[in-house]
């Protein structure tokens, strides 16, 4: 029984979280003695990029090079993945949790009559039954979930397993599918997307600012530090509510949930709703002038002081250590 991994890409570059999903699929297959790990990539994507999928642990990539699939039309992607799943005789589908991935996985769960477990943080445990650990209450707790269906879909949270980079080249199989027009009923008319930025949900390092930054004109300091660290920038809810920063940068319970290796919070007090969006971070650094800010209780490292003095020094110090 093979493991199928759904790959997402942004303008032809495979998302890092999807490569992690491939590594998760490989580790799962090794642990449970399943068969081949097959990845499915939809739309136009280069051979180089498909090669990365092999390094991450897939032995085969099924590439459906259909331009109509370049955009993430939810129903069309679900239909294509279901066809491939059945063709390869897979028993498990793995994918990275994302806004498209969630929507596609939900439709697939019905199509494939499969159990869908989301926010998976570890490999399954099959010592008695089939158990999966997933994150719930926006990272405030975990649930041990028993899966009873034969077919399984696992939507994997970032950092559930380490990214594997030493796999061998995958065999790429070009496949043509027939996808009914009804699946393209939703039309994407335009996109408005920041280019050249590190994407927040994918980032290994995130630098976020809160109301302590006093105004959007001071964001240059956050961006300078982020640039030096190769980080994505985020913000607290009040900051996106008052329009200092765009909504897609809002980190928190009702915004983007991040799981970087390093989260740097500047001028954010640490309301419980913000903490819920960052509590899967490996290390948290807090810079705040208020020593009583609740965020310090959730932090690994902290500096009590004025962000406007500390940020330039920190950016310099990061530059100096390179």
């Amino acid at each position, binding site marked *: 029984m093979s493991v199928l991994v759904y790959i997402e890409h942004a303008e032809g570059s495979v998302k890092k979280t999807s490569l992690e999903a491939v590594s998760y699929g490989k580790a799962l297959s090794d642990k449970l003695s399943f068969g081949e790990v097959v990845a499915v990539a939809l739309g136009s994507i280069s051979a180089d990029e498909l090669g990365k999928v092999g390094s991450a642990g897939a032995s085969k990539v099924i590439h459906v090079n259909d331009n109509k699939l370049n*955009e*993430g039309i*939810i*129903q069309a992607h679900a239909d294509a993945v279901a066809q491939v799943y059945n063709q390869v005789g897979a028993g498990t589908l793995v994918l990275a949790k*994302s*806004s498209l991935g*969630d*929507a*596609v996985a*939900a*439709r697939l*769960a*019905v199509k494939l009559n*499969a*159990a*869908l477990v*989301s*926010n998976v943080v570890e490999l399954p445990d099959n010592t008695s039954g089939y*158990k999966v650990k997933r*994150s*719930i*209450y926006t*990272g*405030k*707790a*975990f*649930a*041990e979930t028993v899966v*009873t*269906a034969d077919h399984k879909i696992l939507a994997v949270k970032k950092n559930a397993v380490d990214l594997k980079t030493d796999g061998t080249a995958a065999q790429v199989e070009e496949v043509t599918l027939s996808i009914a027009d009804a699946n393209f*009923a939703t*039309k*994407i*008319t335009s*996109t*408005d*997307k*920041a280019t050249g*930025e590190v994407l*927040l949900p*994918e980032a290994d390092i995130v630098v976020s600012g809160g109301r302590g930054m006093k105004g959007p004109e001071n964001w240059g300091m956050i961006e300078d530090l982020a640039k030096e660290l190769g980080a994505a920038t985020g913000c607290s809810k009040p900051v996106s509510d008052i329009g200092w920063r765009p*909504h*897609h940068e809002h980190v928190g*319970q*009702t915004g983007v949930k991040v799981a970087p290796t*390093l989260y740097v919070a500047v001028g954010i007090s640490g309301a*419980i*709703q913000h903490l*819920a969006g960052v509590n899967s971070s*490996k*290390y948290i650094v*807090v810079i705040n002038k208020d020593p009583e800010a609740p965020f310090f209780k959730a932090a690994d*490292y*902290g*500096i009590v002081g004025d962000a406007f003095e*500390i940020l330039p*020094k920190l950016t310099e110090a*990061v530059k*100096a*250590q390179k």
Partner: protein
Amino acid sequence: MKILVCITHVPDTTSKIHFTDNNTKFDKNGVQFIIGPYDDYALARAVELKDQLGASLTVLNVGEAETEPTLRKALAIGADDAIRVNAFPKDSLFVANQIAAIAKENGYDLIMMGRESIDFNGGMVHGMVGELLGMPSVSPVMKLEVDGDIVKMAREIEGGKEYLEAKLPLIAGCQEPIAEWKIPNMRGIMSARTKPLQVVEASVDGVNTEVIAYQLPPAKGSVKLVDKDNVPELVRLLKNEAKVL
């Protein structure tokens, strides 16, 4: 035009999470339950659409009797009537099956709900309902306008927005800033008491996941503070101790 808004009954976002019965049950002690924040955005937009289009607006919850105050609140905010499917929401497929069954019976043009519940965060129910009903589903929707039978939407994607169009009927998983949350006024609260709230039994059974135990994350150690006049020390710690640079 008929609009259905599906809401969850979840712990308030400021709740501290605890479990009882040997970590097998959620501890409701001292927890205030609310309309899921994302569902609340969907409801707020639906109330605007109802006024704008002269639509009917039904609100639905799959839950036991304890969720009725949450449904009454949705009625106070502006829904015309409420349906409660009298069952514990066992898993996302179970909930999606109940919603689909009600929708098949009543034939809604637009089904709205939050992008995800804030207890289990799956973000699956809208897609499942869409597939069960053979309708398009779009999520997370941050802007939604209805123009005749065309729905124009903005959907949040990683790093930006995508603008979409689809025909009704449609299912939308919603999030901010689709509308401002609405706070019920006194007239709304009074009228909510007499608006119809229909209780129906679950019509489809079957689950394929079951939670057997809960766990809290390990407690965080105490913070290591670096003096504000020694900022390079922080970089040294991140590089040599945490090994993240």
